């Protein structure tokens, strides 16, 4: 019997639970695109399906990015720093750069990738607010979710954004100049440890196990899906024109063909072999009555619920919560996509 790379790994468990029970921090630098100019808002409103025009200075918005077929090709957080200045936080920098370039005709804007200038430390967990209040000169007491502000940490100017990828009520992202990162990290590290937390160093924890517990997606989950299939259609602004709108209107009219559902492997102690798309490849096929109805998108571990948990991208209405089925011979059950409730 082989060990489970999640369940049996106390290192990962301790980093994961630090975020859930106290506070954890990690370097989470994304690629950053800066969009400026008189038409920046109008441009972003065309590129992204969610409404950007109502985004106020100092606030952020999550949105997908679609191709002409209405498929999700990126999901980003857009931050409005000034009236005509936005940051787009993406993990798709090169493609995003090209995408902006090829769609920028007729817009009075400048776009540039500023990734190398900035680092971002994500500080997450119930004690993250206390940590930030201690180390940021201005404190974060009044900072609302998806709101950002300029502040000073360790004598360096930073931008603090309230948000995160863990599902925690309190979580902050500290953007600092790349040259200041060592100083800023030292201060965060000391405060986090003093609060009983630790640095989260494991990619699988901050990219997979923490977000999955909260029902969040990592970009691979969304590959070749549309917003209706993965439950990201709610904030789409249908009153404006945006890339992929025509295709998506058809999906809205006909209904999505697939849906993302949660699942658990029933016996957490068993040695199972189920492939998932998170490592690349097609994911394990899921069959009902001999017919393939979906593929396993993700399979990780919930350290809060102590279950092997994940997502399946399945044909619509073929898998229902509570259904028991065997995946590659292993007993599984369909669940909600949230293990923090």
């Amino acid at each position, binding site marked *: 019997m*082989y060990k489970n790379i999640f369940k049996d790994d106390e290192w*990962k468990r301790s980093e994961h639970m630090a975020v859930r029970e106290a506070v954890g921090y990690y*370097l989470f630098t994304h690629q950053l695109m800066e969009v400026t100019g008189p038409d920046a808002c109008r441009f972003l409103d065309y590129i992204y399906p969610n409404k950007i025009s109502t985004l106020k200075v100092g606030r952020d918005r999550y949105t997908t990015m679609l191709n002409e077929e209405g498929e999700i090709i990126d999901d980003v957080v857009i931050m409005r720093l000034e009236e005509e200045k936005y940051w787009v936080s993406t993990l798709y920098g090169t493609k995003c750069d090209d995408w902006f370039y090829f769609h920028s005709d007729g817009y009075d804007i400048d776009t540039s990738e500023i990734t190398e200038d900035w680092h971002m430390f994500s500080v997450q967990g119930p004690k993250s607010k206390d940590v930030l209040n201690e180390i940021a000169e201005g404190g974060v007491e009044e900072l609302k979710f998806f709101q950002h502000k300029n502040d000073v940490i360790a004598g360096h100017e930073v931008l603090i954004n309230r948000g995160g990828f863990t599902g925690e009520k309190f979580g902050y992202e500290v953007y600092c100049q790349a040259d200041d990162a060592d100083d800023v990290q030292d201060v965060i590290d000391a405060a986090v440890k003093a609060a009983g937390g630790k640095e989260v*160093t*494991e990619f699988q924890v901050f990219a997979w196990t923490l977000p999955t517990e909260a029902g969040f997606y990592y*970009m691979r989950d969304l590959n070749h899906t549309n917003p209706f299939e993965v439950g990201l259609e709610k904030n789409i602004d249908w009153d404006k024109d945006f890339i992929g709108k025509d295709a998506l209107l058809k999906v809205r009219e006909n209904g999505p063909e697939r849906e993302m559902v949660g699942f658990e492997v029933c016996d957490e102690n068993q040695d199972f072999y189920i492939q998932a798309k998170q490592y690349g*490849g097609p994911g394990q096929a899921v069959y009902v009555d001999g017919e393939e109805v979906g593929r396993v998108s993700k399979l990780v571990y919930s350290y809060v619920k102590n279950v092997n948990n994940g997502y399946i991208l399945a044909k619509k209405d073929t898998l229902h919560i509570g259904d028991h089925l065997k995946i590659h011979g292993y007993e599984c059950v369909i669940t909600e996509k949230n293990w923090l409730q």
Partner: protein
Amino acid sequence: MTKKIDGRIPANSGNEAGFTQYNAVQSPWNKLMSYQDALHYASRFEAVLSAAVAQAYRIIIPDYATRASEMCKEAYGRLYYTGINYPGDDGFGIHPFMCGSYPGALIGDKGDDALLMCGRCQDFGTYRCEKELDVCDWDICGSELCRATTMSLQGQADATETRHRKGHKLDYLMVEAKGCGDRHCRIIAESREKYPAPEHELWESFGPAVSDDYKKYTEEEDCVEESMMFREECDYHFVNGTNTETDSSNQMVNLSTAASLYLLPAIDNAVKLGYTTAENAEWIKKCVLEAAGKAMFGERYAIRACREWLGVPNTIGEDGRLLGGVIEMLLQSLVCHYEIEAFNKDEVIYVINRGDLAITGTQSVCEAHLYMWQGMVKTLVNAQWSVWEEDSPKGKMRIKIAKKIDKFM
């Protein structure tokens, strides 16, 4: 029965490989071989050629440890500097927050699929990565190559590490290798901070891994035979865990070989280090590769199969056009440009673009092919026939297939 109709290979498969009429290679007798099959053919032929070059290298440095060590050092150094000078993080889906050498696994994963070495990533994390291969055409080249490829991956991973904030170094190990007779190739990369183990020499890259008890073994019935780009269940796309996506439109152009990437550079390095002279190294390569070529068609059934494969009409007997057909199929499969100066029962002459044939820039690849073809013609046609280079224009290799008497052959 579901009556499911599998999706077909997309029409763009091979679009960028330079074909004019069909996305297929074409024999002189108009027999077509699909792009997918051609890629496999080229990969296998080049693996056989590489295996012969490996034998030459074994003659030059007889001691296993010395040979493997030199090969690993050369491969590590070259790929490290390639990684430093030609960074490609975005192309592999390496994100800015991926510090340390674990993103090297993403480079290996994508490279494997492009080289038809299909399998799966089983683990990808800051402290541990695991990749399992079911197929590797290079598994006939000897275990030194398995060690060297592992160290080239280490070199790329270490180069990637330099572009990010400080992270954790991973030790890349090939704990199972098809070249050693294992069912799979299995790379486990593990952090010595989390999984302590004594330091080892560069060439001692077979493990064991401390985290071996986390490995995920794929049983025979679940093994795959094709890369993702040729599998319907993958929608004919390679996609890794960070969403790097490629299709099969131009993989031929990217095909590299064990000989071009590892073995011929290892021999050049052995000359540089004084294990032999350049002349002797060339002589050994010539001897071994000619013998390997002769062995390809030593039995009549191999000739019959080859004629059928090329669609050679019965009216064509034993002459140089047979080898010409084989060479043309290979050159097209490698996207190597060539001109036909003569193609008749008495002589066949090709003018081949050296730059295209010198895969990954290794110039001696051209001569290696010439030696192999000289051996092949002796058994595919008969001993009256030879292949030699003659009156080559600059940057080209003009080869002639014709009858030749040479008392010192």
